């Protein structure tokens, strides 16, 4: 009976003895890993799940395609609100979702170096860390940028995490809105102790499919053909309507 009462502690230990695991292991996956934006696309819910060593902290990031963006403050001049000098943000993520086993300020000291080592230094600026930890500029362009994303449901700073510290399993659902930028999304899970952080990554792709893909391809790669076709189509519609509605 005493053995059974200690089950929660003993069973993982027994498993650890019977099935040797690496000193530190983690896995993450996204389902679906390919989101298709067809003609009737209106956003998609993606489930991110995985496993790490029981009891270890966890930081989960879903990072949308990164590109250079310009952000400008608005100022009032002669009674009109106008854009002032713009600031360029390199590698700004088009989408960013953050989930963690603990509050972000507690997790970042553990994983700061791991993110840098993984080539994700640029993303640190967008995590809304306290000013003393990331030496935020004034104005804080990164905070302003993520606030703009948040207004379009493209920045999700506190995604709920279904976390089971005993088994080490975790999962969360992330809503990709219909205005999420198409491209390759990185799903990054950071875990482990501060002296031995572990980073695992997977990807999910948001791609246009079917007619939307063909139309975009034509617009970008064959703009002359696309433009002429668009015009001829409009003229055909106008002609048919004009003739039909003006029959004598």
């Amino acid at each position, binding site marked *: 009976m005493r053995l059974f009462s200690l089950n929660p502690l003993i069973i993982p230990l027994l498993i650890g003895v019977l099935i040797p695991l690496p000193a530190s292991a983690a896995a993450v996956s996204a389902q679906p890993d390919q989101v298709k*934006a*067809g*003609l*009737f*696309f*209106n*956003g998609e819910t993606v489930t991110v799940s995985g496993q790490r060593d029981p009891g270890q902290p966890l930081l989960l990031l879903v990072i949308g395609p990164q590109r250079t*963006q*310009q*952000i*400008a*403050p*608005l100022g*009032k001049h002669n*009674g*009109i*609100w*106008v*854009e002032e000098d*713009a600031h360029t943000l390199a590698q700004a993520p088009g989408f960013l979702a953050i989930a963690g086993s603990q509050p972000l300020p507690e997790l970042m000291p553990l994983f700061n170096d791991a993110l840098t080592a993984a080539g994700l230094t640029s993303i640190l600026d967008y995590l809304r860390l306290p000013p003393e930890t990331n030496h935020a500029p004034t*104005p804080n362009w990164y905070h*302003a*940028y993520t*606030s*703009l994303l948040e*207004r379009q449901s493209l920045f999700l700073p506190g995604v709920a995490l279904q976390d089971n510290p005993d088994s080490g399993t975790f999962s969360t659902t992330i809503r990709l809105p*219909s*205005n999420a*930028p*198409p491209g390759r999304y990185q799903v990054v899970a950071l875990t482990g102790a501060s002296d031995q952080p572990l980073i695992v990554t997977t990807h999910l792709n948001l791609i*246009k499919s079917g*007619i*939307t*893909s063909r*139309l*975009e391809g034509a*617009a*970008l790669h064959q*703009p*002359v053909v*696309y*433009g*002429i*076709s*668009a*015009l001829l*189509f*409009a*003229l055909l*519609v*106008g*002609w048919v*309507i*004009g*003739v039909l*509605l*003006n029959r*004598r």
Partner: protein
Amino acid sequence: MIHIYLPIAEVSVNLFLLLAIGGGVGFLSGLFGVGGGFLLTPLLIFIGIPPAIAVGSEANQLAAASLSGVIAHWRGGRVDLRMGIMLLVGGLIGSTLGVSLFAWLMASGQIDLVIKLLYVVLLGLIGLMMMVESIRANLKSRRNEPSPEVPADTNTWRQQLPWQMHFPTSEVTISAFLPIGLGILVGILAAVMGIGGGFIMVPAMIYVLGMPTAIVVGTSLFQILFVASNVTLQQAIRVQTVDVVLALLLMLGSVIGVQIGARAGAKLRGEELRFLLAFIVLIVCGWMIFNLTSRPDFLFTLVTTGGH
């Protein structure tokens, strides 16, 4: 709720909302005889379509709508082809200049502000002029006074300009520079603002060119057809901002709206129609002034620096 994903705008829009917007603007077009672009662009921006895509796609929709209108007027003999070609020459020059201006403004990041300011100035001026004119006409009709006709050939400054040309359908003799200049102005506005320019062209043809009102609408539509076609091609080739799915849905909505509007318009007097149109124009203008002058919810914005 069916949502349609727009491949170039990269946003999903409610199908019925888009059809309703097209239908609503089409209704006003049928009611008042204007293209309706001055209402359509702000409405599209309001529902989340990027301004550059709204302007480019609307030109495509205008090409369909104007051809449909030209066919109706052509069959009724209400198109001055000679005048239309002069306006067209100016319109093509103007729309080409306008697309270059549009691309330059996009690169400088000021496109949104310029479009909004142009709207405020034009809507304000034209709305006020129409409002005053319609009130005067209404007062005169109540007193049973005849409305003064626009004098066609007594305007001496028109006769003093070089390159005088006779236009038999409109029965006027004026300098060819006048319709060409008017075409350039409207072409630039069409390219930058995504409008056909009907609400500028129609009064200018009556009061500046001295054309009979019956010929004006068809001739204006003839010129708008070519300008909208040129803008569609230029926007598609140079900045990739034409979304054919968006344009098609707007076309479908506007076709139905135009028919309902035309029938409703037949039951109203001309002064009442002009007063209503002026009222709507001034409301849109007031809304845009409010947007420009009231403190935004958030004091940062993303800068539009390129096409698609």
